């Protein structure tokens, strides 16, 4: 039963696996975005305090959630690559970084644009916003550190350590609204209580979160494919694949 999991460690197998899954991920992502955007922009109510600006929630919350999710994936896969020396794990880790940075940037900028009409300010140095900004620096630092080495194996290992050290930031971001007085609100969706949000709003929000999640998998697999081709360029299967493509 576990053989398929170990097969993922083979770049060739992973590449073919990615090729098979990508069409599904692409279509599911597109459909979810269309449904989610329709629900969020047209079929969800105004907030009694914020009015229409609450609609920014449908892109801000998914971006913020994914920014943390992707970092955890990046750190865990980096750790797996470091401990068990599985190069595919490093491929996943390195491929996560630019996508995670984009989500973090989007979370920050949509949060900023949401804050101005709602609270009158584009930015506050409160705990959650500051720690999310630090998350962006961690992503950029990861990419810069990886690029700084000529030897790819050393680059992978050093970057993995940075990712693991930075993981403490994730619970800080998550719990910051409880630990410190914050401009930011607390969590509305909790495992333990019924959500306090309107049902139509919740539908739109959950749809958009899953849409962003599927987008992440789509873009990650595309990125991994290119990374595999580059890293495995001296192997027979890549050579025959590329030369067969150019002769077609």
């Amino acid at each position, binding site marked *: 039963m576990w053989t398929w999991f170990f097969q993922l460690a083979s770049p060739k197998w992973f590449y073919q696996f990615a090729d098979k899954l990508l069409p599904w991920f692409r279509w599911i992502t597109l459909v979810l975005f269309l449904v989610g955007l329709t629900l969020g922009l047209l*079929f969800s109510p105004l907030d009694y305090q914020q009015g*229409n600006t609450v609609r920014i929630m449908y892109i801000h919350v998914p971006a913020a959630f994914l920014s943390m999710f992707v970092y955890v994936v990046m750190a865990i896969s980096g750790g797996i690559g470091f401990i068990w020396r599985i190069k595919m794990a490093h491929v996943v880790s390195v491929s996560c970084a630019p996508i995670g940075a984009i989500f973090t940037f989007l979370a920050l900028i949509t949060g900023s644009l*949401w804050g101005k009409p709602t609270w009158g300010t584009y930015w506050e140095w409160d705990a959650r916003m500051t720690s999310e900004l630090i998350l962006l620096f961690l992503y950029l630092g990861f990419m810069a550190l990886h690029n700084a080495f000529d030897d790819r194996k050393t680059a992978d290992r050093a970057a993995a350590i940075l990712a693991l050290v930075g993981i403490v930031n994730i619970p800080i971001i998550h719990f910051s609204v409880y630990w410190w007085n914050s401009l930011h609100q607390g969590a509305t969706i909790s495992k333990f209580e019924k959500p306090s949000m309107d049902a139509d709003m919740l539908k739109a929000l959950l749809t958009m979160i899953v849409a962003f999640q599927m987008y992440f998998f789509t873009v990650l697999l*595309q990125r991994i494919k290119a990374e595999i081709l580059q890293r495995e360029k001296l192997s027979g299967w890549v050579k025959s694949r590329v030369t067969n493509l150019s002769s077609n």
Partner: protein
Amino acid sequence: MYFNTINEFIEMGGHGFYIWLSYAIVLGLMGFYYIFSKRLTKKQEQALTKFYRRMNSRNETSVSEQPPLGEEK
């Protein structure tokens, strides 16, 4: 639906600028990265085709004609 006219939809109760700018940046950047990452594979294949061609021509020419190793990354 919570909007009666298209103008209401665009205006968003006065907050249209912030809302539409946010959506434009998010969808624009994510759309761009989707296309960019999709093209990466193709670009990589093109780069590798050139790489293999140079490797092959290096193997076919005699040793004295080849440039010294270590010149290219």
